[in-house]
């Protein structure tokens, strides 16, 4: 698993980054970049992560994070980064 973009959307609350980062650390996934913004009152966070050393499959990691998101009332979504690189870079 190479670079993955994780997006988190929902109502801002305490510990979103901490809990997400804790999961990533546990799975040996390196965070390359974090940015966040508020769009129409919704908290939007994006993480670029490197999953090269993670032993879980993409689907498994994605499902784990979706579940983690639900515990905080958030939508967490994983996508391989090529989709964005292809669309926005020549």
């Amino acid at each position, binding site marked *: 698993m190479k670079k993955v973009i994780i997006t988190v959307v929902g109502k801002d609350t305490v510990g979103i980054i901490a809990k997400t980062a804790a999961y990533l650390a546990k799975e040996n996934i390196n965070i390359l970049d974090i940015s966040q913004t508020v769009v129409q009152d919704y908290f939007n966070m994006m993480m670029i992560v490197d999953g090269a050393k993670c032993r879980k499959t993409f689907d498994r990691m994605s499902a784990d994070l979706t579940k983690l998101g639900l515990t905080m009332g958030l939508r967490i979504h994983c996508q391989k980064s090529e989709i*964005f690189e292809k669309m926005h870079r020549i």
Partner: protein
Amino acid sequence: MIDISEVLETNKMVSEQTLDVRTITIGISLLDCADRALKTTCDNIYAKLTRLAKDLVKVGDDIGREFGVPVVNKRISVTPIALVGAACCRRPADFVRIAKTLDRAAKKLGVNFVGGYSAVVSKGMTPADELLIRSIPEAMAVTERLCASVNVGSTKTGIDMDAVRLMGEIVKETAARTKDRGSIGCAKLVILCNAPDDNPFMAGAFHGVSEGDAVINVGVSGPGVVHAVLKTIRGADFETLCETIKKTAFKITRVGQLVAQEASKRLGIPFGIIDLSLAPTPAVGDSVADILREIGLDHPGAPGTTAALALLNDQVKKGGVMASSYVGGLSGAFIPVSEDQGMIDAVNAGALTIEKLEAMTCVCSVGLDMIAIPGDTPATSIAGLIADEAAIGMVNQKTTAVRVIPVAGKKVGDTVEFGGLLGHAPVMAVNPFSCAAMINRTGRIPAPIHSFKN
């Protein structure tokens, strides 16, 4: 490094603007399946399709999940069956057995359509071509996922008017054979001129003889994305309008290119082309008509519609060509009536007629598409519609097509429901004056003067 605004823009295209990859279509040559014995031919076809396309649906779904872009349809196109069955089919019913084999393979694989129940008769029909054409009504009645197409002309060869006349009758017969289901057989039957060998879109997809053994072709879509972006520049000049469409088409097409390359890699089948088409669906916000309205028309069909569509079609191509390494298929804006809520609204409002749709087909892909017409329309008038579209294609060196549904028992003003992607359609009026005397002439229309380029 990717910026958060870019990530949000892409994801908004999917979640709010109905961006999707409309189809991954595997083109498969069945020439090596042909045998003198019908049963062996059918067995060979079934074996080859279920071997080469066995992972198609899974790979399409995996790619959709991993990149976060839905891959809506997974389909197969095959060598025109008139060629494959030529050695073993002695009567139309023999071709129908091949039709059932293809349908069975489609169901086994979970693909929603198989295209290529086809004959390419641009200049003349072989006995096998004619048998296949005559088998179409039965084949469409007894199968679910099979699509048929007949290419009746090209810029190089002219128009085979004998085939055009025959297709008028075949369309009627197909409607009659599926009359209990809104004559849906006709929704899976298209008559083309200048049909491309690598089209991934149904119903006109087939795997032409110029192609390799197997190939991946991808059709992208995204009228909703173009519409949403145009809303943000309302009233801007034409330069801004065109540049905006072009940039948006580029982004949409890049998604298709990525999906095509991934599918090619995972399936071990070479990448063929991206079809740069704006393909609407009946879903709200997935409409080409909405784009035309956003450009500044009350409804498609108003004066200016052809110009607006020409502009849209050209900018989509200009943006898309740079985004993909190989472009082919139909590539342009589709203007089906039943599959586009905005087009349906335009018909119901009295803004859009078949004659205006015909004019629009001069500047876009593909033709008179998914148009319900009265069930009592004479076969010769349907042949006349086909001849007109073929003439536009032949003279303008472009693909044109006719997919009309003379809905049994329905008249102008009625509505017919096809369901799913095929949508629903108001029955439109066909010019009541006859062209029978012209259609009943035999032979073909010669190729136009500008086809002689050697």
